[in-house]
Structure formats: structure tokens, C-alpha cells
């Protein structure tokens, strides 16, 4: 029944070692979002895909990239994770102003 799936649920990486988080959806929504949520803070939008069009938020660091090979899958790549990148990463899907559906999140730990 899960509509937005994120893998892995927990990810441990080393400082500077590239890491990829994945998200998949069964809702066939044309928009997929990636949010970063640090401890005790609100989710913050990093970027989104509208179909194949990538849209970066102005304050998202270059260290963060994304790929969307097809409608169902979207990946978040962190090229050189720093200690400050430790957070919960949330994937969401939606259409226009409709409700966004969130995945359970991937908690990233950087050692």
C-alpha cells in the first residue's frame, strides 16, 4: 500500500564519501520533491522535478544533485557529505497545488 517509498531508511556515510538516496512512487505524480529536515527544524525544500525538468532552490548547495530516470524513481546524490548534511531527507510527490504525499524519510548520518 505504500505510495512513496524511500530507501534506505537509515544511511551512514563517511565525511566526503558520496552517497545516494532513493525514492519511488506508485501514484504516477508528475512532480517529485526532495526536502531536508534537520533536528527540530521544519522541512526545507532542496529541489524538485516537474516531469523531467529539474528545478533547484536558490539556496541549495551545489553538493546536492538529483536524478529522475523515469516517472516512478528519483534519486538524491550528495557528492561530498559534510557533518552539516546529517539530517532526515524526505521525498514527496504531488501535482500542482494538490496534496503532497511524503515518504517515511531517510536518516543520514555522516561520520
Amino acid at each position, binding site marked *: 500500500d505504500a505510495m*512513496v517509498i524511500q530507501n534506505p531508511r537509515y544511511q551512514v556515510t563517511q565525511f566526503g564519501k558520496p552517497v545516494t538516496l532513493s525514492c519511488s512512487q506508485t501514484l504516477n505524480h508528475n*512532480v517529485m*520533491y526532495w526536502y531536508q529536515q534537520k533536528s527540530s*527544524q*521544519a*522541512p*526545507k*525544500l532542496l529541489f*524538485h522535478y*516537474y516531469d523531467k525538468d529539474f*528545478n533547484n532552490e536558490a539556496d541549495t548547495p551545489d553538493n546536492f544533485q538529483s536524478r529522475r530516470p523515469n516517472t516512478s524513481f528519483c534519486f538524491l546524490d550528495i557528492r561530498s557529505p559534510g557533518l552539516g548534511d546529517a539530517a532526515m531527507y*524526505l521525498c*514527496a510527490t*504531488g*501535482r*500542482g*497545488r*494538490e*496534496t*503532497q*504525499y*511524503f*515518504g*517515511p*524519510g531517510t536518516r543520514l548520518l555522516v561520520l
Partner: protein
Amino acid sequence: AQRVTQPEKLLSVFKGAPVELKCNYSYSGSPELFWYVQYSRQRLQLLLRHISRESIKGFTADLNKGETSFHLKKPFAQEEDSAMYYCAPCSGGAGGTSYGKLTFGQGTILTVHP
């Protein structure tokens, strides 16, 4: 700049008491307004959307355009309402032809005591 303010970080009430979670926003244009909720160990999910005017789990929210507020209310709180609540205006995406950008408030942790 778009801004969302939830002035109470923590809110505690007793079971059966009324509860109001405040949200004020500063936005250009006409955002669509949402409340999202995150229960312990669960994913973030929709609680209420202004345009649908539905009452979900007994919650309602009234939009006051003059005060730019969208406060969430429930007349009788239940223990299972204990959660983190986010007010989230959504800009863009009119007509479902593009994307909608949610801006989350800082959230209010509601605790309902027995």
C-alpha cells in the same frame, strides 16, 4: 519574502479541552493553505486543506485573509492528537499545470494529557 509563523513551539492541553494552533503567513499572491501532521514514528501526512473545507479528525481551520492567519482548531482534544503540526502555505501550481511549493512553519508540538 514568503514567511510562515507558528508562534507556539510547544502546546499542552488536557484531554477534552479545546485546542488552537496558530499560524500566520506573509505571502505574495494567493497561496493554497495546508496543515500537515506528523505522528510519532509516522510519515508527514496531510491533516487539512483549506480548499476542500473538510473537517479531518475533528479539526477545522478558518482562513482570515485580513489577518493572514490560518489557525487550526479542535473543540475537544484527544490523546491521539498528540503530534507535530505544520502549517504550510503552497504557492504556484495553479490549475495543476505546474508544481506547488510548500513552505513549512517551524511546527507546533501538541501534547494532550490524559
